[in-house]
């Protein structure tokens, strides 16, 4: 086993197990605060807007979207890639925790996993709506049918279907199995009859036996190990949707690693945003410490460097290839032409601003951390915008060049997914412990033992 020494306190204060249970179940056991209801109201309004946009797309067709003959993939695919990217961090945290035994991920992975589940749900909606007739979505599955047709297994779009459904199911399994012991704890403590019934039902009869824990630990390691390559594959396949085409700016071998790093980068930024909010809202300062935020900031810093390298490599490859179309896309359309504003927002927000995290003071400053995390998410949205729209709007034939702008329906669906995400996360913080109680307890104990050892050493 890797022996990684913990240098900073991951759980502050000498807490007993009882204290940890009380403090971490606070969000479930207390009445929800006022802002929770406000958040739910906003989320519901956004969902309603999304519902309207969804209805418009179904009843009047995709003509209500801003798509044109050239730009056949617009906001929906941008947002799809953006949400999938955000979804990546949750599983990445679980892998850090379960496979690499990084103890600091222990108090973050539950909420990061929740974020993954809801983000992937939001992402999955876009291709579904884009089909035009979502009720026929099962056509994309390989099943024997009356038309005697099979799927084209060589198509990246089919891989995408497989990748995203596999990812969603595996993340839900990881997330749910991870919280079974905590649900059992709540079921024992709650006095509410309905709550007792529901938590009891979902805790699957967990009784805390050590022999169950033995198999459970093995199961979680297997699931974590299986999810590790899956994380890499999902965004690689999303990138292949683009990379196997012949459009300038898409047809590049660097796209899969570039997308993958981008996904981890944006996902960690979203985790940082949420962690700063959660620790303040539920007084989790002792469990999500400055050390956790510092670690995420470090990951973001290196992620930003890799992203910057990818941007520059792409441009170099375009120049070195000598292909006119490639050079046009990268040096004219993106860097200096009609998409230059978006391009430079992307470049500065993703590759330059996170470099602030080289400075310790920036990593310690919550406002800077929060602002940079938001900036990265905006930057990553623009990255997907640049990749998609600039390549499609100005392709080989200048006669077919076009402008792209979203319609209200496009924007409505995007807002709707924000509603879904907000409501989902708020329901999560209301009914499920934000920090995995049963995983934090051994970490707190290890911390205590380490302290004792250090004290004994001094005497």
């Amino acid at each position, binding site marked *: 086993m890797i022996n990684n020494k913990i240098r900073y306190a991951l759980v502050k204060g000498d807490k007993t197990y009882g204290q940890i249970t009380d403090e971490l179940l606070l969000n479930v056991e207390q009445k929800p605060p006022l802002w929770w209801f406000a958040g739910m109201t906003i989320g519901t309004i956004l969902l309603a807007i999304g519902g309207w946009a969804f209805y418009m797309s179904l009843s009047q067709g995709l003509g209500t979207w801003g798509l044109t003959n050239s730009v056949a993939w617009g906001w929906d695919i941008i947002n799809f890639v953006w949400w999938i990217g955000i979804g990546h961090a949750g599983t990445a945290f679980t892998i850090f925790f379960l496979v690499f035994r990084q103890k600091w991920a222990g108090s973050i992975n539950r909420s990061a996993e929740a974020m993954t589940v809801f983000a992937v749900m939001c992402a999955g909606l876009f291709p579904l709506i884009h089909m035009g007739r979502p009720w026929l979505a099962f056509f994309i599955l390989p099943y024997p049918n009356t038309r005697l047709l099979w799927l084209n297994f060589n198509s990246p779009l089919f891989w995408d279907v497989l990748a995203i459904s596999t990812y969603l199911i*595996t993340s839900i399994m990881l997330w749910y199995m991870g919280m079974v012991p905590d649900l059992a704890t709540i079921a024992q403590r709650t006095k509410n009859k309905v709550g007792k019934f529901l938590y009891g039902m979902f805790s699957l009869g967990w009784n805390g036996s050590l022999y169950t824990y033995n198999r459970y630990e093995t199961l979680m390691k297997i699931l974590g190990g299986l999810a590790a390559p899956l994380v890499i594959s999902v965004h690689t396949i999303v990138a292949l949707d683009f990379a196997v085409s012949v459009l300038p700016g898409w047809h590049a071998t660097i796209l899969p690693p570039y997308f993958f790093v981008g996904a981890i980068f944006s996902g960690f930024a979203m985790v940082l945003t949420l962690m700063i909010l959660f620790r303040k809202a539920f007084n989790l300062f002792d469990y999500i410490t400055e050390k956790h935020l510092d670690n995420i900031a470090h990951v973001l810093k290196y992620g930003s460097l890799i992203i910057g390298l990818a941007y520059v490599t792409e441009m170099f490859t375009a120049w070195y290839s000598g292909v006119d179309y490639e050079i046009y896309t990268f040096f004219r359309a993106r860097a200096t032409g009609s998409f230059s504003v978006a391009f430079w927002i992307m470049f500065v927000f993703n590759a330059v601003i996170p470099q602030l995290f080289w400075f310790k003071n920036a990593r310690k400053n919550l406002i800077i951390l929060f602002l940079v995390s938001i900036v990265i998410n905006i930057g990553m949205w623009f990255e997907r915008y640049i990749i998609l729209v600039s390549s499609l709007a100005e392709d080989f034939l200048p006669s077919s060049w076009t402008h792209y702008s979203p319609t209200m329906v496009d924007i409505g669906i995007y807002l709707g997914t924000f509603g879904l995400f907000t409501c989902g996360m708020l329901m999560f913080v209301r009914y499920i412990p934000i920090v995995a109680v049963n995983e934090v307890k051994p970490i707190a104990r290890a911390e205590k033992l380490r302290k004792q050892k250090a004290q004994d050493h001094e005497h």
Partner: protein
Amino acid sequence: MSTKQIIGVFDDESVLLKATQKLKENGVNIKGIFGPSADHDLIKKLTKESRLPYLSVATGVITIILTFAFVYYVSVIDYPLHYGGKPVFAFPPMVVILFLVCILITGAFTTFSFLTSEKMFPGKSAKVVHPRSLDDRFYLVLDRNFNPEEIIQWLQDSGVEEIIEEENEA
């Protein structure tokens, strides 16, 4: 013959570990250990290694073989379609499919195997020794024994917090 069931209550894993090892050395049957969390060392020292990984690997291998057979049947035998002169049987795209299906089926099957082997299912009523066993105490439940006095003595020597004696229905 005594039919008393003895339960030792502990508040620290290291004490629990010492007591359990002592009882095991003396041949006392341990019915179960229940606690709010499980330290990796504790699990390693007190339980046998789970065989779940072997099952997982076997599932993975079988899944890959079956998926390969399915994709081969579909794209070569039943419905060979030519896309721009590309070969009907292409291995590289198949790797992606094999990989993903393998993860999906192996993950799901391993989870269900775990639930089956632990006899866990939604709605099962949990047999919890004491509500605190899911909060902050560890409960060492022992089988009916011939020498309860001796066991109680051993437990007390180890630093147990509390000893509960229950009349066993059996």
